[in-house]
């Protein structure tokens, strides 16, 4: 994992001191809330429905055991014993006191963490593939590239006040586990015909009120040009992005309005200019960063077989364990989606346990996924059974990865001041309705995503089944959508028709899944059947 150098640490430490002073001045009445608000937001501190909320950045979703343990400590010491892992691979605390905020940032800084740029119209935390460095199919580990971009984008003076927030994702395999093309910039590391590693750039994707799939802007950007090309993409956006209208200010609107070809032409022009400025770091810097992400010392003698004689373990293994690039190891996903639970929530004790397990079984490393789960990326196959037993004891072994029970849900109206409807109670009801393991397995891969408002933090546009909570004359109502995907078969979901009550939408999902089971052909997932037969049969089942 990357380790801060003196510059990183100094930047974070000075920001903590600066924010401490700002908090003290606000409490003393030397600043109004209007003056203070942009300052606290730059440090990830929101004022939400019930209290202050702190969003802590987890760069490209990667955490050490010590960092996870610190997240637990903060939950215990300053919050109410839990945290919420988000769809941006971050963590949020819901009950923060302003008078504690600087102390929390101070504690985070001791484990090389912070909350900088987790809010505001700047380049946000860069997301990545939770299987990075462990998957056999990736062209390279995407995290050194993400780290280079993190360093470039942190406190970048030119991009501190963009027209709107800006989200970048870096992956390195054809399988997309990070919703890459639904980002402002989606980067896929690829090899060109000469065997050189570079970046394929997609620009102008996003969800929110106007969902867009990012078009391809450039097939191959050399590693030597990565920063310059990003700089060019951002500069064109910064110059022409719609600052006059918040709802049209994201880069996806610019790319859509002027067209991908024209946007690309302007980026290439800007890129040609920027290359004369020698902004790119030397290749040695990427190589220096890459050394922090060198593969761990895998046990060459470890067995490649797993004893699956315990049937309960086998269910979890079959669902939550993925192939690792080393045949003696596996990638294990810890589902934070127990039946009737709150998606993405983890208690301080559970975080401590995951930190311990990361240390004991996964080279002290864990990952946060955009699906609000935790991954242990490097587990010896011989250790999987012991790992599962410990997870099971702590309620952390739901065997539902990518099944209907593994749904994404934003905090919704239970916590969020922007929400129009509650997401979590609906997630709980769906989870309970489909609690039966056999039934979930029978339905197969089914990505269900719930947002409590049009801002789409719950990724409803990318759900095989998406749900959008709306306010209909003061009453919560839920629109149902089918056919979305955030994966390599990316697509945007379409609304089925009139919305439903909370109970009504659970019934509607059951009708839709019943139709799927009746209509599916061999090997088809829910979304495949939907794509083949279209919306009409589903509408008939729901409204007929």
């Amino acid at each position, binding site marked *: 994992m990357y380790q801060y150098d003196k510059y990183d640490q100094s930047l974070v430490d000075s920001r903590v001191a600066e924010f401490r002073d700002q908090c003290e001045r606000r*409490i003393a009445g030397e600043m109004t809330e209007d003056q203070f608000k942009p300052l606290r937001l730059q440090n990830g501190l929101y*004022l939400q429905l019930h*209290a*202050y909320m702190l969003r802590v950045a987890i760069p490209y979703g990667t955490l050490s055991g010590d960092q996870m343990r610190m997240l637990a400590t903060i939950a215990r010491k300053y919050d*109410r014993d839990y945290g919420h892992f988000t769809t941006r691979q971050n963590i949020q605390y819901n009950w923060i006191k302003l008078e504690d905020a600087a102390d929390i940032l101070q504690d985070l800084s001791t484990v090389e963490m912070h909350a900088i740029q987790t809010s505001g119209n700047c380049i946000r935390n860069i997301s990545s593939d939770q299987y990075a460095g462990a998957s056999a199919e990736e062209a390279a580990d995407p995290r050194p590239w993400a780290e280079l971009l993190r360093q470039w984008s942190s406190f970048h003076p030119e991009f501190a006040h963009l027209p709107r927030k800006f989200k970048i994702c870096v992956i390195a395999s054809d399988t997309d586990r990070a919703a890459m093309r639904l980002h402002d910039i989606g980067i896929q590391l690829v090899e060109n015909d000469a065997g050189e590693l570079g970046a394929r750039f997609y620009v102008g994707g996003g969800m929110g009120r106007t969902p867009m799939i990012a078009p391809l802007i450039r097939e191959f950007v050399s590693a030597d040009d990565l920063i310059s090309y990003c700089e060019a993409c951002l500069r064109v956006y910064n110059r022409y992005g719609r600052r006059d209208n918040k709802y049209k200010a994201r880069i996806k609107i610019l790319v859509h309005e002027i067209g991908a070809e024209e946007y690309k032409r302007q980026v290439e022009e800007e890129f040609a200019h920027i290359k004369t400025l020698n902004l790119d770091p030397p290749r040695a810097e990427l190589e220096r960063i890459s050394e922090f992400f060198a593969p761990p010392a895998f046990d060459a003698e470890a067995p490649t077989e797993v004893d699956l004689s315990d049937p309960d373990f086998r269910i979890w293994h079959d669902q939550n364990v993925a192939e690792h690039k080393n045949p003696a190891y596996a990638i294990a996903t810890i589902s934070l989606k127990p039946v009737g639970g*709150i998606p993405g929530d983890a208690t301080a004790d559970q975080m401590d346990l995951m930190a311990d397990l990361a240390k004991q079984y996964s080279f002290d490393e864990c990952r946060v996924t955009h699906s609000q789960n935790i991954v242990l990326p490097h587990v010896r196959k011989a250790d999987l059974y012991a790992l599962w037993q410990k997870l099971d004891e702590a309620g952390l072994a739901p065997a539902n990865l990518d099944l209907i029970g593994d749904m994404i849900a934003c905090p919704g109206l*239970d916590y969020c001041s922007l929400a129009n409807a509650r997401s979590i109670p609906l997630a709980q009801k769906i989870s309970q309705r489909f609690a039966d393991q056999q039934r979930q397995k029978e339905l197969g891969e089914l990505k269900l995503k719930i947002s409590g408002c049009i801002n789409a933090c719950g990724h409803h546009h990318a759900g095989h089944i998406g749900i959008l909570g709306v306010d209909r004359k*003061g009453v*919560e109502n839920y629109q149902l959508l089918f056919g979305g995907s955030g994966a390599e078969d990316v697509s945007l979901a379409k609304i089925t028709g009139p919305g439903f009550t909370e109970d009504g939408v659970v019934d509607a999902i059951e009708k839709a899944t019943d139709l799927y089971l009746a209509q599916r052909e061999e090997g088809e997932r829910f979304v495949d059947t939907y794509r083949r037969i279209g919306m009409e049969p589903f509408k008939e089942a729901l409204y007929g």
Partner: protein
Amino acid sequence: MIILTGNDLKTGDVIWWAGETNWSRHLSDAVDAGEEADAVLQREDAARRVNAGYSVEAEQTERGPMPLHIKDRVRASGPTVRQDLAIDTNIPIEKA
């Protein structure tokens, strides 16, 4: 009726105006600010007894003042999915 709400500056707790310079964490203590709402909010904000205050349309019920909008009822109740963290689990969320 018009009631006033906001957050405690230091703790972030949701609070309701209970008359004069008093604020309460309990919706049942809220009082009608009537036409004085804006003036009270301005005064209380300046004194830092409330942060990000705003006025809420409410109706008087048997349980006391009840906000008309669901968002403010959730604020008064606490998260409906964490009853252990709720302030008042008896507040009807679904309707005023």
